[in-house]
């Protein structure tokens, strides 16, 4: 039975998973969840995803949620047919440095990035609500405080976990892209201020697999 991705065609987290499916050349069926109609809050949906969130996947009966767990599963199961997006699990230190990079994305980037994306793009575009510019300024400030750390790491190595691209780099794209391209904020694309981070950003966002899904499913 084909791999199924349940989500929303333009949802950032859904596109994160779709990106990795494309990287690993995994054929999949996208099943649209009626978010407007609160399908993800129905009792039937909650049996699959107990927190009522999107997306989730069903790989021939194996159900998984949390996009980063899903992406790791895809990158592991189909390891032979796409790029190696994380180190060999038997290499303890390389794996630890990969886990470190995953956590950097989650703890130092994601929260502020999501908040900025919601205010600058999602609210005006989809909810017809005004942007809270004060909140944006506060979250941008939070994010900018972390960019020095990114710049320091990326000045010593090509990617966040070392010399090879990993899932940890790619997880930044779905919200980061939204902020830069649709929110119009330069931030980490500022070559003058953060040359290494800008180099890294340009590299990861020009990957064909991302370009294939960036417009939505």
């Amino acid at each position, binding site marked *: 039975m084909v791999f199924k991705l349940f989500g929303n065609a333009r949802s950032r987290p859904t596109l994160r998973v779709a990106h990795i499916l494309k990287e690993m050349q995994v054929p999949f069926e996208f099943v649209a969840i009626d978010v407007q109609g609160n399908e993800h809050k129905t009792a039937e949906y909650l049996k699959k995803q107990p927190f009522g969130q999107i997306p989730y996947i069903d790989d021939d009966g194996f159900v*998984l949620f949390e996009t*980063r767990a899903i992406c*790791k599963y895809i990158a*592991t199961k189909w390891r032979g047919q796409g790029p190696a997006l994380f180190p060999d699990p038997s290499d303890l230190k390389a794996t630890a440095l990969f886990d*470190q990079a*995953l*956590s950097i994305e989650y703890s130092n980037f994601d929260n502020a990035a999501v908040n900025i994306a919601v205010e600058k793009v999602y609210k005006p575009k989809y909810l017809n609500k005004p942007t809270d510019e004060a909140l944006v300024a506060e979250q941008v400030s939070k994010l900018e405080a972390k960019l020095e750390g990114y710049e320091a790491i990326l000045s010593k190595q090509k990617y966040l976990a070392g010399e090879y691209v990993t899932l940890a780099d790619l997880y930044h794209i779905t919200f980061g892209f939204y902020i830069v391209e649709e929110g119009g904020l330069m931030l980490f694309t500022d070559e003058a201020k953060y040359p290494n981070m800008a180099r890294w950003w340009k590299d990861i966002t020009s990957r064909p697999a991302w370009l294939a899904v960036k417009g939505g499913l």
Partner: protein
Amino acid sequence: MVLKIHGVPKFAYTQIVLVVLKETNAPYELITVDWINKEHKTPAYLEKHPFGQYPYMDDDGFILHETSAIVKYIATKYRASGTALAPDPSNLKATVLFDQAWSVQASDFSPYAGGIVMERLGKPFHGSQPDEQAVQQHITNLENKLNGYEAILGKQSYLAGDNLTAADLAHLPLGTLIGELDVKSLEDPTRRPNVARWWNDISNRPAWKEVLSISDA
């Protein structure tokens, strides 16, 4: 040279590392960071931890930061010497279910429990008043997510399956603190009996009691 943890024993993320060290019987040395005097923001510290946070680990020269990476490294390296707190890396499904569980803790528990602690403990420490409306919102959000926990823990003993993992233990520091701050959502068996059973189990483990006694010292 023995594994060194640089952190602050009464703070949550250092405590997560300490409880994992104790459960796995890993030998270690704890070096207290002089956080009050902003040691973690000095150039020397930033060389080790580019985001100026704690804890970080130095295992005979191998430097690692990010609690989740440190915890997985210790759980993997010392898998045979104490409680097995992470699955065998060669087991794909068990590994991603562990990732899913860790992600649930990070997205669906810690932001809200952390928010409560920030308001009722953090703010008074810095000389301002808690915003009780914000506290109520965090409690509402937390309890909403705990309904998801209740469903999961009704089918299996722990968050990643039938075995205890570091993903369960990661709830201990903030979970204990909110209990002390009069938020009894985890402990109340009348509303969520499975959550209460799980909380009672993990919070009474001897290793956690030992961590609390270090933290009080």
